[in-house]
């Protein structure tokens, strides 16, 4: 997923910025997302544009983009079901299924619940 940010203000007296984050393919104009005030403290690496971008996204961007995702309107057609019971691919056809997406280095464990 690609993300974007836009700084709307820099306050040199307090070394703060007002910034907005969203996904590159967000459904709204970035200016419509909630602005956030951030201190340009030691957690933000101001060495160059690359380090600035990486650290600002790690410190704040990823969290805010996740919040936007959770608060965005959910289309009725996209409301997921939670299938239970034995796995059967035919039962899933036509259903909307919710799933977590993990970091690339993580793979899901195939666990099986057993009734004893």
């Amino acid at each position, binding site marked *: 997923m690609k993300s974007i940010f836009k700084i709307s203000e820099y306050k040199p007296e307090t070394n703060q910025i007002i910034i907005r984050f969203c996904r590159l393919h967000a459904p709204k104009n970035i200016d419509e997302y909630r602005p956030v005030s951030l201190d340009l403290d030691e957690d933000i690496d101001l060495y160059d544009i690359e380090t600035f971008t990486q650290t600002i996204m790690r410190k704040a961007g990823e969290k805010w983009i996740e919040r936007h995702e959770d608060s965005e309107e959910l289309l009725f057609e996209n409301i997921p079901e939670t299938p239970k019971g034995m796995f059967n691919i035919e039962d899933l056809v036509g259903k909307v299924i919710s799933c*977590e997406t*993990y*970091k690339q*280095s*993580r*793979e*899901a*464990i*195939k*666990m*099986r*619940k*057993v*009734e*004893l």
Partner: protein
Amino acid sequence: MTIPRYKHFFKKLDKFSVCAIKADPNWIGVERDVECLGAYHYVVHGRAKVGVPFKEEYFEVKSKDFFSMQHLFPTVMMDIQDDFYMIGFSALHRKEKWDGRLVTEPTVMVQKESHLICFDGNPIVNGKQLERFDYADLSPDRTYEINLNGGALGLFTEVSV
């Protein structure tokens, strides 16, 4: 030169999560508890040194060991000695406290709802043969007949909320 590789596995369930790592010899990894709330671990195979970065003290774990790293939090380092495979039991939230142990007795009764996880082999519980990553909820009103059958079963109970 071959760069040691590792792979991380994860599954979030209703009341806890399970993670696992597979790592090559000489792989070194550091993990913070913001990323993992691993309460207990079982070594399927291999050996590793476990400690805190920049501290001299460490302990070694090997195949079939069941142990906790919670006392080392917030930052844990692992230095893999042999081809390594470890499974972990994790809380969902930092405030949760869990008791965990390997089952060794032929019969298990629990005082409150608990969870059984098959870490290795094919144990038989109440006549059902399990395999790795099978899990079950245990009720306090029942008795569970266990035949470890050379395998390993973890038993976990949440002790506070």
